[in-house]
C-alpha cells in the first residue's frame, strides 16, 4: 500500500460508510417492510458467505459444512438470549426435551449471579445479545477446529465430503438425546427476540466489521500464507508455512463468523429450528461465493445480493401461468442461450464458434416462443401450470453455467479498491503483461528457443490479451 494515499483512502472509506448509513436510513425509515427484511437477510448471509469465502476462496479448501457451524452458533445464541416467557413455555410443554439446567442457561441468569443486575434489565437486551452472539461464535469456532485434523491428511474432494459429513452429523445429533436437552430436539425454540436480527443497522454493522476483518486478514501476512496454501500446499510447506496453524486459523475464524451469522439468522427468523439449517443453506452460500468470485470479498457480496434477490424477489417466477406462457418463456430462454453460447465461444476464440448451430438454436427458440405466445388464442396450451422451486432450479443452473464458463466467478480474486475506482494504475502493466515482459527481456530464456524471432514477434502482436 502506498503510504501517501493512506489518509485519502481512509477518508474515502469513511465517506463510503457515510453513504451506506444514508442508504440504510432510507431503507429503515421507508415504507417497505419487505425491503428492510431482505436487506437485513442480505447482511446476515453476507457475513456467512464472507466467512465461507475465507476457506473456499482464500485458502482454497472446499468446505461444505457451513450450515453446521451456523446451527451451532444460532442455537447457542438462541438458548442464551431466549426470554423468560419462551423458557416458561418450553418447560410447561409436555413434549419438550430440555431440563432445568439447560433452561437455566441464559445471559440474564449469569448477569444476575455475577451481581450485574443492571445488565439483566430489559433495556440492556442488546448488550446481552452481543454477549450471546460472541459466545455462539466461540462455540462454533471450537467445532471449526475439529475439521483441521482431517484437512491436513485429505485432498480436495475428500475433505469436502468430510466437512459435509461434519455438517450433517452436527445437524443429525442436534435432534438426538445427546443434544436435545440443549436444542429442544425437533421442536426448537420460538420467540427469539428479533429486534436485532431484523434491524438493518445491527446486521449491517456486523457485516461492516466482518468485511473489515476479512479484508485486513486477506492483505496481511496471514492472508498471503493462506493464499499460498491455496496455490500449492506442498510448496507453501516447503517455504516454511505451518499448515496446521494456518488452517486452524482459517477454519476457526470462518466458523466464528459463521456462528455469529447463525445467531443473527436465528434472530431474523425469530425462532431456532433444525429445518432452517439444512444443506440448502450451504448450497446458497456456495452459489454466492462461486458466482460472485472465489477469493474476493467484493465478489462474494455481489453473489450474496444476487442469491438473496432471486430467492426473496423471485416469487413471480413461481406463480401459476398457462402452459403457453411457460413455453414462450422457455423459447426466449433457449434463444438467449444460443446467443450467449455463440458470444462466449467467440470471446474465447473457440473453434467451431457455433455460428450455424447457434443460429439454428436461436431460430428454434424464437419459433417456440412465438408458438407459445400464439397458442392460447387458438385454445391450445392454456392449462395453468405452477413451477415450484423454479428459483432454486435457476440458481443451480446459474452455478453450472458459471463453472463451465467462468469458474473463478464474476470478480475472480479481484477486490474493490479506491485506487481502481480512481483509475490510478491504468497506465501500469497488468500482471500478465509483466510476466510476458519478464520472459521477453530474459536473455537466458530466449536462448533456449529454436526460432526465437517469429515467436517473439507473435507474442508482441498479441499484446496483453
Amino acid at each position, binding site marked *: 500500500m502506498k503510504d501517501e494515499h493512506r489518509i485519502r483512502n481512509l477518508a474515502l472509506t469513511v465517506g463510503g460508510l457515510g453513504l451506506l448509513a444514508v442508504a440504510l436510513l432510507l431503507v429503515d425509515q421507508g415504507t417497505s417492510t419487505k425491503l428492510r427484511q431482505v436487506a437485513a437477510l442480505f447482511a446476515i448471509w453476507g457475513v456467512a458467505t464472507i466467512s465461507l469465502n475465507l476457506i473456499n476462496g482464500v485458502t482454497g479448501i*472446499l468446505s*461444505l459444512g457451513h450450515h453446521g457451524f451456523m446451527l451451532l452458533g444460532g442455537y447457542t445464541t438462541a438458548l442464551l438470549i431466549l426470554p423468560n416467557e419462551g423458557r416458561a413455555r418450553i418447560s410447561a410443554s409436555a413434549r419438550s426435551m430440555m431440563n432445568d439446567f439447560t433452561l437455566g442457561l441464559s445471559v440474564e441468569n449469569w448477569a444476575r449471579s455475577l451481581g450485574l443486575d443492571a445488565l439483566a434489565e430489559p433495556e440492556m437486551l442488546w448488550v446481552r445479545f452481543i454477549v450471546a452472539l460472541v459466545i455462539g461464535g466461540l462455540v462454533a469456532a471450537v467445532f471449526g477446529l475439529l475439521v483441521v*485434523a*482431517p484437512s491436513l*491428511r*485429505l*485432498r*480436495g*474432494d*475428500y475433505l*469436502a*465430503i*468430510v466437512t*459435509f*459429513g*461434519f455438517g*450433517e*452429523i452436527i445437524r*443429525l*445429533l442436534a*435432534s*438426538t*438425546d445427546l443434544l436435545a436437552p440443549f436444542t429442544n430436539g425437533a421442536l426448537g425454540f420460538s420467540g427469539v427476540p428479533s429486534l436485532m436480527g431484523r434491524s438493518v443497522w445491527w446486521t449491517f454493522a456486523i457485516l461492516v466489521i466482518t468485511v473489515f476483518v476479512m479484508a485486513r486478514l486477506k492483505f496481511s501476512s496471514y492472508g498471503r500464507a493462506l493464499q499460498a496454501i491455496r496455490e500449492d500446499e*506442498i510448496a507453501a510447506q516447503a517455504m516454511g508455512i505451518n499448515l496446521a496453524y494456518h488452517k486452524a486459523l482459517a477454519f476457526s475464524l470462518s466458523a466464528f463468523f459463521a456462528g455469529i451469522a447463525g445467531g443473527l439468522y436465528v434472530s431474523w427468523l425469530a425462532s431456532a429450528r433444525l429445518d432452517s439449517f439444512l*444443506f*440448502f443453506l450451504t*448450497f446458497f452460500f*456456495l*452459489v454466492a461465493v*462461486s458466482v460472485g468470485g472465489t477469493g474476493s470479498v467484493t465478489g462474494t457480496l455481489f453473489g450474496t445480493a444476487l442469491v438473496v434477490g432471486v430467492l426473496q424477489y423471485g416469487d413471480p417466477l413461481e406463480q401459476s401461468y398457462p402452459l403457453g406462457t411457460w413455453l414462450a418463456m422457455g423459447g426466449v430462454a433457449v434463444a438467449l442461450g444460443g446467443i450467449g453460447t455463440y458470444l462466449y465461444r467467440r470471446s474465447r476464440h473457440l473453434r467451431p464458434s457455433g455460428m450455424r448451430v447457434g443460429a439454428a438454436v436461436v431460430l428454434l427458440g424464437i419459433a417456440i416462443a412465438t408458438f407459445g405466445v400464439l397458442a392460447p388464442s387458438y385454445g391450445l396450451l392454456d392449462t395453468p401450470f405452477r*413451477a*415450484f*422451486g*423454479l428459483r*432454486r*432450479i435457476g*440458481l*443451480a*443452473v446459474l*452455478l*453450472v453455467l458459471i*463453472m*463451465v464458463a467462468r*469458474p473463478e466467478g464474476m470478480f475472480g480474486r479481484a477486490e474493490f479498491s479506491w485506487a481502481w475506482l480512481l483509475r490510478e494504475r491504468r497506465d501500469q502493466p497488468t500482471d500478465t503483461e509483466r510476466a510476458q515482459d519478464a520472459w521477453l527481456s530474459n536473455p537466458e530464456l530466449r536462448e533456449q528457443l529454436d526460432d526465437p524471432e517469429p515467436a517473439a514477434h507473435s507474442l508482441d502482436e498479441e499484446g496483453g490479451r
Partner: protein
Amino acid sequence: MSKLESKRLDLRIFAPWAVGLGVLAVVLVRIAYLVNVEGFSVAFFVGAFLQSAQLGSLYALIALGYTMVYGIIRLINFAHGEVFMIGAFIAYFLFTRTPYSLPWAVVTALLTGLGVMYVLNLWRGRLNDPVVLAGGAGSFGLLVWLMTTVQLGWIPALIFSMLITGVVGIGLDRIAYRPLRGAPRISLLITAIAMSFFLQNFGVLAFTRNVTPFRPATSWTQAMQFQVGDGTVFMSRVIFLVVILTVVLVMILTQFVSRTRLGKAMRASAQDAEVAQMMGINVNRVIATTFLLGSMLAAAAGVLWGLTYGTLSQPAVMGVLPGIKAFAAAVIGGIGSLPGAVVGGVLLGFMENFVTALIPGTTQYKDTFAFALLVLVLLVKPSGIIGEDLSEKV
C-alpha cells in the same frame, strides 16, 4: 528374498481380516448375551439379519454407480442419489398412469427407445450400426403401441425405467460433466452439487410435491412369517426379490466389466484415461457407458426401494439420504473398486440395522452411523476396505 522375510505376516493383508473377525466375534458374543441373559429371541436377530441384507443390497446397487464413475473420471457424482430418485418415480408413473395419451407415450417411448439404442450400442460398438438403429426404431414403435393400449405391470415398468434413467444419466454426463473434462476437480464437485440440487427441485417440478404410495399389483410384497426356535420372524417376501435381483445385476455387471471388450475399455480408462485414449479407446464413449450402467442400477435400486418401503418420499428429499449413505458405503468399501462398493453397501446395511438391534436405544443415531463411519474411514484408511492407496505424492 530370504526365508526370514517370507515368514513375517504382511500386516496390510492381515489387518482387515483380523478387524473383521474381531468385530464378528464381538457381535456373536453380544447376541449370545442378549438371547440368554436379557431374553431377546433369536427370531428378532434373524429378522434384523434379513433386513440388513435387504438394505445392504439396495445400498450396494447405488454405491456401484458412485464407484464406477469415480474410478474413471475421479468425480464424486453427487447427483447419483437424484438419479436413484428419478428411476423410482419414472417407474411409478409407468405402472400407475399407463395407458398414456399419445403425446406422453411418444415422449416416453422416445426416451426408452434411446435407452434401447444405447444398450444395443454396448453390444455392437457403434451408434450408426443397422442393428442399433433398427432396434431403436422398432422398440420406439412397439413402445408407443404398448404404452397407449396396456397398463404396464411393475416388471416392464422396471425395465423401461432402467432404460430411461440410463438415458438421463448419459444426458447428465453430456450436459454437466463433459464440458468440464479438463477442469480442476473442485469445479467438477461443485457442478455435481449443483446438478444434484437441480435434479431435486426438477423432480418436485416434474413429478409431484407429495409423498407417493408405491404399490404395484404384485405378490412379492406379501407379508410372510416363519418360525425360528420359539419366536416368529415377520417379514415381506420382497426381501428375497431385492437380494436375488441385486445378486443377478451385480453378476451381470461383473461379467460385463471383466469379459467384454467394452468392459476392458472401462478398466483401462479407469487405470489411465490418457493412455487408454492413445490406445484407441473412445474415452468419452466409455464414460457415457459408465453413466448408463450406473444409472440403470440406481433405477433398479429405486424400484426395489419403493417395493420395500411401499412409499416414495418427496422428490427433493428421497434421494438425498440414501445417496449420501451409498456414497459412504462406496468409500468405506474402497472407492474405485466394484467389489468394494458391494462390500461397503452390505456392511453399511448391517451397521444400520444390526447395531441398532444389538445396542438398544441407538435407533435415533441410525443416520449418523453412515457419516461417522465415512469420516472415520477417510481419516484412518482413505483407500477403504478394498482399495488402492490414494495418498498424494509430491
